[in-house]
């Protein structure tokens, strides 16, 4: 048997992103680029130190020097939002990265090999899904105690089963394709087949899901910090800012409104990107 007889068209190595992504996704990508820059450049952009206490500006309103006003300790809200956003975004991206790093191998293995391995891998995953998401996070925090790093792993634990399920579904669909069979027939090992043919073609829906989840991670992080079980002061966190802002809501609504807006805008941006990517990366509609 010769190689050429079974030569199949080369599969693309990565999901293609070229071409039109649609207007909404374009807006989302633009927003994300700006938000990313704000997060990365926070130390440069912040007009004041986020910790600097100014007793003359306690609950001070919006001015040119302090466009977002000041909080209950006279700290500059804009600078604090920038630093908190940077911290919260890192946690959310970290959580999604962990969930992808663990979820993709589990989902691919379960979907590709099926049978016993599928059952062994997916039963625990299904059990995790049987928990209300936030409760799962709280259970972990109950064990370890609150903190920023724990928050990241807790969010990853919520996302892991979701992403593993998505990857498993798309792997199931891809594994029955002719090019996978062809690769095996040509003598490619399972590992080679998975890395070269299954993963590149099955990963699209997971990326779509992951981009949407990135936004929601910000909401979870903030919620955990708000109820006192996430980041602890003085760590910068949008949730902690919202908690402080809630205490002075009537006198200084800006201390509450701007951190909340930062979360909402980021969620919108990630959702727009996710919707835009879905058209290109998830033709089967697995994440819908």
């Amino acid at each position: 048997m010769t190689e050429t007889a079974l030569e199949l068209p080369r599969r693309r190595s990565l999901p293609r992103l070229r071409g039109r992504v649609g207007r909404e996704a374009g807006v989302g990508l633009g927003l994300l680029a700006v938000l990313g820059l704000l997060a990365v450049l926070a130390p440069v952009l912040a007009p004041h130190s986020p910790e600097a206490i100014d007793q003359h500006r306690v609950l001070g309103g919006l001015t040119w020097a302090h466009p977002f006003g000041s909080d209950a300790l006279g700290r500059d809200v804009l600078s604090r939002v920038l630093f908190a956003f940077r911290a919260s975004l890192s946690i959310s991206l970290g959580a999604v990265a962990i969930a992808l790093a663990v979820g993709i191998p589990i989902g691919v293995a379960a979907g590709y090999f099926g049978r016993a391995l599928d059952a062994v891998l997916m039963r625990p995953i299904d059990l995790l899904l049987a928990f209300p998401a936030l409760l799962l996070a709280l259970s972990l925090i109950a064990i370890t105690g609150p903190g920023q790093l724990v928050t990241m792993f807790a969010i990853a634990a919520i996302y892991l089963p979701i992403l593993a399920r998505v990857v498993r579904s798309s792997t199931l669909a891809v594994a029955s394709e002719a090019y996978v069979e062809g690769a095996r027939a040509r003598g490619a090992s399972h590992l080679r087949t998975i890395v070269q043919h299954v993963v590149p073609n099955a990963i699209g829906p997971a990326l779509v899901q992951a981009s949407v989840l990135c936004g929601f991670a910000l909401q979870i992080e903030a919620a955990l910090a708000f109820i006192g079980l996430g980041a602890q002061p003085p760590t910068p966190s949008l949730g902690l800012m919202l908690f402080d802002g809630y205490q002075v809501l009537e006198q200084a609504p800006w201390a509450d409104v701007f951190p909340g807006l930062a979360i909402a805008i980021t969620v919108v941006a990630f959702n727009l990107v996710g919707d835009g990517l879905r058209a290109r990366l998830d033709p089967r509609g697995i994440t819908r």
Partner: protein
Amino acid sequence: MSPRGRYALRRVALAVPTLLAMTIFVFLIIRLVPGDPVRTMLGFRATPENVATIRHDLRLDESWPAQYGAWLGGLVRGDLGEDYISHASVSGLLGQRLPVTLELTLFSLALALLVGVPLGVVAATGGRASRWLTATFTIGGISIPDFWLGTLLVLVFAAKLGWLPPTGYASLFHHPVENLRYMTLPVVTLAIGEAAYILRTTRASMQETLGRPFVTFLRARGLRERSVVYRHALRTASLPIVTVVGIQFGVLLGGAIVIETVFGLPGVGKLVVTAINQRNYTVVQGSVLVIAALFIVVNLVTDLLYGWLDPRVEARLGR
């Protein structure tokens, strides 16, 4: 037995191993606490005698299988142990607090359905203006963190307008009117995000259904458009809505944990948050178990409802 009965039975039987696995998970929470959970619970001032007593009460001096067996036995009798701070029984505490959480989540769900489904139909059938308005509502409802929305509603309706109390609670049975005043803001807060998801699902499902041949047929037969949309298409389109409601109930329960803390509602959510902060592990275990079990039951009901709405599911799985 009828396919319907078999389907229901099979589905109920499937929930049992999930519940059992859940108890193992919850049982492990306290055992996985690094160091000595009893010392962590009692703090530095605890005398060695105190520590020994509680360790014995919690059976931490026995082997894990023995501990689990005893704990599960208690669970079956409705005994979830004792709150080591107030010395109340954990099942008693949960019995007081579960109705609050149930009221909050079920009222929110009902309100979300009342708002989300009609708006979803309008979004699928209406003109440009209604499409734009519903899209805005969806984006807002999904992207705005619910607890932040809650604080903003408190600012407007409690602080500025003074129409509703900002926090607090009155029993539904003893003071129904007061109860509704206290529950309005939390329920609305939770319902808005939920309504956005229901709207989105209803819209997609209705758009798909309205393109099917049977709808064209009904229209061709001369049925009024209102009847085609609401009586025929909506029933067919309701399956994905039921699925989403089932999944979203978990989100709703999670949201309730945070919202109860914001509004000072004495529900299971507030109980678990306080218990985690106080390292009151028996209470943590009890509340996690109750919320998780509630979610399993809701998923079970969703699946049964699904079979009832779509007899094909029962026929296929009930064989």
